[in-house]
C-alpha cells in the first residue's frame, strides 16, 4: 500500500486507522468470511490513501471510509461475479406484505422469544438479508446519520429511511423464524 503523496495523506491514513474495527465488521458481514473481509479492508485503506486529496476536511472521515469500503466491495463483486451476492433489497419481503407480522408481534410470548434469540441466530438472520439491507442496518448501528448513510450508499435520504425500515422489518421476520 502506498500513499498518494498528498499534503496530509499520512495524517488522514493514521486517523482512519481508528475505524478499522468498524470497517472490518461491515466487511465481514458483506463478504461473509474472514479472509475476504481482511482483503476488503486492506484494499479500502489503499484506496483511501490514494484518494486522500478527495476527502473534504471537516466532514465525517468514518462515513467516507465506509463509502470507499462499500464501493470497493460492490465493484469487486461486479468484477468477479463468481461470488454472487445475496439478493438485493428488491428481494426482501416488505414488512407491509407480511400479513402475519402484526399478529405475531402482538403476541407477548413471541416477543419474549425474540428477546432470547441467540447471537448465532441473529448473525444468520443478518447474513440472510440482502447486501443493501445488511449495510443499512450496520451503518445505522455505527451511529451514522441518515445523510451519512445516504452518502455511503449513494442514494437519497428518503431511500435510506425506507430501506432501513424494510430491512429491520425483514430482519424481525427472519428472527421470528429462529424464535419459533
Amino acid at each position, binding site marked *: *500500500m*502506498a*500513499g498518494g503523496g498528498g*499534503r*496530509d*495523506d*499520512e*495524517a488522514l*491514513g*493514521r486517523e482512519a*486507522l481508528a475505524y*478499522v*474495527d468498524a*470497517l*472490518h*465488521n461491515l466487511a*465481514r*458481514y458483506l463478504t461473509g468470511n*474472514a479472509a475476504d*473481509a*481482511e482483503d476488503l*479492508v*486492506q484494499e479500502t*485503506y*489503499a484506496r483511501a*490513501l490514494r484518494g486522500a486529496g478527495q476527502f473534504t476536511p471537516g466532514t465525517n472521515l468514518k462515513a467516507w471510509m465506509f463509502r470507499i469500503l462499500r464501493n470497493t466491495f460492490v465493484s469487486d463483486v461486479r468484477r468477479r461475479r463468481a461470488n454472487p451476492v445475496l439478493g438485493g433489497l428488491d428481494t426482501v419481503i416488505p414488512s407491509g406484505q407480511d400479513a402475519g407480522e402484526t399478529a405475531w*408481534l*402482538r403476541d*407477548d410470548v413471541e*416477543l419474549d422469544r*425474540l*428477546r432470547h*434469540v*441467540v*447471537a*448465532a441466530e*441473529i*448473525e444468520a438472520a*443478518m447474513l440472510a438479508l440482502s447486501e443493501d439491507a445488511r449495510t443499512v*442496518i450496520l451503518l445505522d*448501528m455505527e451511529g451514522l446519520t441518515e445523510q451519512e448513510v445516504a452518502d455511503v450508499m449513494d442514494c437519497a435520504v428518503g431511500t435510506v429511511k425506507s430501506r432501513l425500515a424494510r430491512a*429491520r422489518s425483514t*430482519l*424481525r421476520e427472519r*428472527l421470528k423464524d429462529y424464535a419459533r
Partner: protein
Amino acid sequence: MSPDERDAALDEALERLPQYPASLALKRRLRDAMPARPPRRPWRQRLRVLVPALAIAASVVALAPLAWDRLMVRPDRERAARLVAEAVNDHVRVLISQQPLEVKSSDSHQVRPWFAGRVDFAPAVRFGGDAEFPLQGGAVGYFIDRKAAVLVYGHRLHTISLLVFPAEGLAWPRRGVTPVGGVEAYAGATRGFNVLLWREGDLGYALVSDAEPGSLHTLALRLVPAS
C-alpha cells in the same frame, strides 16, 4: 405492541449481534503500510504553533538586554558606585578635618612607617612622590568598615588622596575596568570628584581628587606594577 416496543426488541436483539473487529495482524499490516513520515501540519496549524513561539522568542530577544542589565550590569554598577562614593567621602573627610595630615612629610620613608601600629596592615606604596606629584603626608581614615591608610599627594593646586585598605570582603566591580599598568582599574566620578579604583593582592587602592582623570591615571601608573 407498539412500533416503539417492536423497535426496542429488535435493537435489543441486535445488541447481541456478533462483532468482528480487525485482527491484530491486519492492524499491524495497515499500520506498517502507512508512510513512516510524521504527518505534516497544515500551514494554518503550523502558524498556530509558530506565532506564539515567535512571539515568545521576540519577547526574549527584546527583554534580554533589560534582564542582562538588571541581573548583571546594574548590580555591578551599584557595587562600583558604592566604592566610589565611599572613596570620595574619605577624601572629603581628610580635606575638611582640622588637621588633614596626621603626619606631614615628603619622605615616604617617614610616612609609611608612621602607619605601623595605626592600621592592621602594611600599606604597600611604590611611589614616594616627585615634583609633579609631591607627597604631602598621611593620615588614618576609614573605608566603609575598615581602617585605611591615606597618603596625600599634591598636583598643582589639587590634592590627591591615595586610600590603601584591605580588599577582602569588598564587592569589586568586574565590568567597566580598564588596564592601568599591570592592574585592572575602575574609573568613576561623583560629586565633582574623580576616582580610580584597583586591587593588588590583598590590598585595595583608591585615588581620589578633583583633578582631571588623566592626572589620576598618570599618578596611578607610578603606583601600580608595570604591565
